[in-house]
């Protein structure tokens, strides 16, 4: 939120906590956040083998937080580009 919307720390934490449906205090509670990240499948440090990671996780994070992430946009552009070769 700081990178994409220049939010100061308190505002950023409130925003993310609201989107995740948890308290601000729980943002840094490992017990809560590991479960939240696993349930939302947005990337977790020691997740299961098939848990979403990398740019796919960032796609989900962008949707969850309602923000535009450039690398996600570039990825989607490539994904959705037509298969027809250029003339």
């Amino acid at each position, binding site marked *: 939120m*700081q*990178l*994409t919307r*220049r*939010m*100061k*720390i308190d505002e*950023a934490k409130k925003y993310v906590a609201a989107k995740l449906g948890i308290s*601000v*205090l729980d*943002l*840094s509670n490992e017990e809560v956040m590991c479960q939240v990240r696993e349930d939302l499948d*947005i*990337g977790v*440090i*020691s997740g299961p083998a098939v848990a979403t*990671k*990398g*740019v796919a*996780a*960032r796609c989900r*994070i962008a949707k969850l937080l309602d923000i*535009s*992430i*450039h*690398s996600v*946009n*570039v*990825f989607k552009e490539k994904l959705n580009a037509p298969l027809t070769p250029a003339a």
Partner: protein
Amino acid sequence: MTEKFLTRMGDGERVSLTAAEIREDLEAGNQDAADRGKIPALSADEIDQLFAIVTDPNRITGVKPGNEVITTDDGGPNMIVCDKPDGGVGLPMGYHNAVLAFERLCCADTIGVGHYDYSCKPVKSLINYEKQRYYMYSQAVTAPLIYGTQPNLGVYFKPDGPFPNATELIPEGKIEEGQRAQEAAAEALTEDLIYIAKELYSAGCDGFNFDTCASAGDADFYASLKAVEAIKKIAPDMAIEMGMASEFILGMHSEIEYQGKRLAGMYPTKQVKVVEAAGADIFGMAVNVNTSESFPWNLARAVTFLKATVKVASIPVHPNVGMGVCGVPMLEVPPIDCVTRASKALVEIGKADGL
């Protein structure tokens, strides 16, 4: 016998100071910042809080639950694979693995990557390699990936670069020639920064870190500000962090201005305003450590600058907390007692938005 507390000097030497000596140093550092920066000094309560942090009997300390902040990184993976001169530990692993290790073992909030030679000028000639690298890492990591480089105007002067060397011209009394040389070099630097940022943006770069801005003085800072201004137009979705080299902008040129404001002599409260005006998203304040003064002195000084800067800033402020900056002693392996105390003080008293 008067109780003494373990602390350190700015060069990392461990010393024992009495409570009175610590308080004296806290006040002196606080006042030094207030006088130089023409900013409010910390209150008596805040000095008491600093005293409690510095004299905490434990080896490490931390913020209270709820006060945690994020970190924006300027080269964690570099530290894993680079050699001693870059403060690295020289692990024989590929950079890609270093990036993943930094994300997953060090639990990084953001990941900073860059060229081994961490300056802007060398990156230009191998930009395709950097785009490849950025793109590949970006597919694999979940945390935001920030590309960092130092503007480093110094390498644009002879013998490393094409422009006459201002540091040779000025002592010879050739002031105007020195200024012209800096202006020309600054223009080249701005062009290179824009080129690199534009290319990386096409590879999906989410964030760009201008590291140690103004290391070569006011012309260096000017070049970076002009670059940020242009980059924000061509790469609107790429966040830019401007991390500074020092709390004071050296007047190597002395007359260069940005949007009507002279850059030479600026302290952080003024630096952040021109950084905002250029369009940057995060301000990385730096306050250099005086190795002859104590950790309490240096920490109080940094916190005083930070508190005043955060108050006037409309963008997040992330003070640099590496060796030799914002209170952390100048040691290649920064002592964890000082790093944790500095972090706590900068966040809880200085109100940093991140580190």
